[in-house]
């Protein structure tokens, strides 16, 4: 941090979008300095132009998008004016990049050491034997367990975190001066994310690189950044030292973003009538089997849900948290019978959902509805919004006119204009679409709503609005909520009780306060410790 010599300087960068986009410039008048040996975080919500700026540096802009003004100075050269050959020489050697999705950034048909060796080959360095040795050294440095074995592995044989480590090893291969990391931990679980952040900070220090870290997550910023630049609509609205920006944000937008981050302290748990749970789950089990069969290959058995039991009270919000592969989504899908559980019962008002079929299942499902994760995939692109909401009631015999009137009311209830009824989903933003999804779930007047990662795909400010809406609707309509999420901050904010899942098992179940302040299992503790930005927050609240 003490060094202040800028290695890279962006002056008045402007990148034009093709005609017909929602604004003329993806990036407009951005000026930045990246100093040697510092980590600069660029933060912004989706569409803020943060990735475009990074891609411009690497010459990786999409075909229809091109810089119209400004310069990117590196080593006395303007990167925007270099030819493709000159750029190619710089990439990897001086500037390296890691991406969000390590699975798609690695070649699935190439062994790991061959992919790393390719970096040297592209720049005509070292002999093949040296390249291989160096690959193993690099894998050791990024902390992959058993590097020699991992070197001969294919990407699909590694876990998400290990793949990201391989990507980092490739980026480090030629000791670049600048490392650009575009949301490198967004696709990872929280514990893995903490490890990768540690690794990047470590390597940065050891190699004295400058790191440009692009993220949407202020928690990550708090963990890793020396300096921060906040972007909105293609402009930098605020930049400065990490502690200044986080503790004392000057710009209104930054303040709004920071305020929108779900706080880790838990709300007051309401005293609920525990005598009569609305949903009782006993010994729910779901096992996936694959392989086996005709040619006698060994069968693979995955216990996605392993004898899980819990109760859900009237008006209660139960959080189900866990990392990917913990079986939390399978629980939700078994409850509504999008998947059939192998064993166990789901008692809804005394009726076993797990055993119903046909017409009786159709009727029972009315009282248990779901909100989905992806606001873009969860609405039929060829149906009008009114139709999307009214379809359920119509299927249950409500006259069309009445169903559409009700749809308009519901739209108002979720904070949209009733005129939205005649429009198509693509005319709405992600947050608005999620509101439509909520209206659809409410149309059948359910008693229980299952929200499967319902806010994970949304930007943090939108996320806060949707969470508020859910809390308000829950109060007003006396709904019970099963809230499935990987994000412990969100769970802390909205849930009365929390169930922690790991590899299909229920590790711990308790009130939000118990889980966050007095966790009983080691796994829960490790999850909570891995939440990015937690220490800073603890320090701030004293």
């Amino acid at each position, binding site marked *: 941090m003490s060094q202040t010599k800028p290695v890279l300087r962006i002056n008045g960068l402007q990148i034009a979008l093709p005609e017909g986009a929602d604004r003329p410039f993806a990036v407009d008048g951005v000026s930045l300095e990246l100093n040697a040996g510092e980590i600069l975080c660029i933060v912004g919500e989706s569409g803020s132009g943060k990735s475009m700026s990074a891609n411009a540096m690497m010459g990786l802009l999409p*075909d229809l998008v091109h810089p119209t003004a400004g310069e990117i100075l590196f080593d006395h050269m303007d990167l925007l004016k270099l030819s493709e050959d000159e750029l190619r020489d710089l990439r990897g050697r001086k500037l390296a990049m890691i991406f969000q999705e390590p699975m798609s950034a690695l070649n699935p048909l190439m062994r790991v050491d061959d992919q790393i060796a390719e970096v040297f080959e592209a720049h005509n360095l070292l002999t093949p034997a040296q390249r291989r040795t160096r690959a193993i050294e690099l894998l050791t440095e990024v902390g992959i367990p058993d590097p020699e074995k991992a070197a001969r592995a294919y990407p699909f044989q590694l876990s998400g975190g290990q793949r990201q480590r391989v990507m980092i090893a490739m980026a480090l291969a030629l000791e670049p001066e600048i490392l650009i990391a575009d949301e490198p931990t967004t696709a990872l679980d929280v514990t893995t994310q903490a490890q990768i952040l540690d690794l990047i900070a470590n390597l940065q220090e050891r190699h004295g690189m400058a790191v440009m870290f692009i993220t949407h997550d202020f928690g990550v910023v708090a963990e890793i950044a020396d300096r921060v630049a906040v972007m909105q609509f293609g402009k930098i609205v605020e930049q400065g030292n990490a502690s200044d920006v986080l503790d004392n944000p000057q710009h209104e937008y930054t303040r709004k973003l920071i305020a929108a981050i779900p706080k880790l302290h838990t709300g007051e748990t309401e005293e609920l009538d525990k005598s009569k749970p609305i949903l009782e789950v006993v010994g729910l089990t779901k096992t996936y089997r694959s392989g086996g069969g005709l040619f006698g290959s060994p069968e693979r058995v995955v216990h996605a849900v392993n004898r899980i039991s819990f109760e859900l009270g009237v008006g209660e919000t139960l959080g189900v948290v866990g990392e990917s592969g913990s079986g939390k989504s399978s629980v939700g899908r078994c409850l*509504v019978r*999008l998947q059939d559980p192998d064993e166990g019962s789901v008692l809804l008002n005394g009726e076993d959902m797990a055993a119903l079929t046909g017409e009786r299942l159709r009727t029972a499902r009315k009282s248990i509805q779901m909100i989905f994760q992806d606001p873009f*995939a*969860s609405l039929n692109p060829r149906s009008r919004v009114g139709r999307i909401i009214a379809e*359920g009631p119509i299927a249950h015999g409500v006259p069309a006119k009445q169903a559409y009137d009700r749809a308009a009311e519901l739209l108002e209830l979720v904070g949209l204009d009733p005129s939205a009824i005649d429009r198509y989903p693509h005319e709405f933003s992600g947050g608005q679409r999620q509101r439509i999804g909520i209206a659809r779930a409410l*149309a*059948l007047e359910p008693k229980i709503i299952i929200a499967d990662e319902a806010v994970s795909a949304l930007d943090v400010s939108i996320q806060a609005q949707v969470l508020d809406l859910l809390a308000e609707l829950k109060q007003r309509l006396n709904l019970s909520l099963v809230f499935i999420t990987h994000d412990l901050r969100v769970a802390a904010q909205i849930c009365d009780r929390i169930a922690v899942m790991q590899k299909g098992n229920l590790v711990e179940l308790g009130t939000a306060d118990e889980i966050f302040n007095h966790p009983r299992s080691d796994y829960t503790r490790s999850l909570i410790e891995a939440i990015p930005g937690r220490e800073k927050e603890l320090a701030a609240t004293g």
Partner: protein
Amino acid sequence: MRDFWKRFKRNRGAVAGLAILVLVILIAILAPLLFPQSPWKMVQRPFLPPLTMEALPLGTDALGRNVLSGLAYGAQVSLLIGLVSTVVSLLIGIPIGALAGYFGGIVDDALMRFTEFFQTVPNFALAIVLVAIFEPSVQSIIGAIAIVSWPPVARLVRGEVLSLRSREYVEAAILSGQKNSTIIWRQILPNTLSPIIVLASLMVATAILLESSLSFLGLGDPNLMSWGYMIGAARTVIRQAWWLSFFPGFAILVTVLALNLIGEGLNDALNPRLSRKGK
């Protein structure tokens, strides 16, 4: 819709194809007005070369019939058979593909094996056999072409339905208590429309070629003048009267080319994300 036209227009070939197709359709519709006499009627001496008489710019055939009039009436037959047989094969292929993709499991297995059964028999051979069994007529030709060309439709629709089936909006529809038939009809099929339209435009072209080939072999409807029949009838005299096979052959080429260009334009316009780079 306006977006669609804008993207379609960007592909020059497709616009040219559309212009040609509109011209062919106009000729087909106006044929009885332009040539009130039957195309089978003798009007001049046989083997009159093109451009020798003003009234008969493309000359006459071996029996003294007007070649230009034959072309115009042939356009009717080609377009009619191309369109109707495509519609029929869509009517067979879409339901089979949708059911197989939606229900999966044993239904899928049964329907796909049935489809493969048709795919293993060479198209043209099967079409010849069918027409030969049912006497050559417009209906039997359309039926035969439809029967040999539906399997690709079924496979395409099945693939689309398989991927749409696991979309969240389909799951939401299941949860809201909609019946399977409603879900297929309202949630899934509308979203398979784009690739089906593209495939259909190419199938019309293939159907026109199949019909011409059947007529060339003498398996066309004996009451209808068609392009394939004209080439077939002229093949023995190709060295004395080149124009008898050249003009109908050119008509087939241009029409099929136009349809293929349109198909490509539709593909660019309906699947903008798949369209090739740098366009």
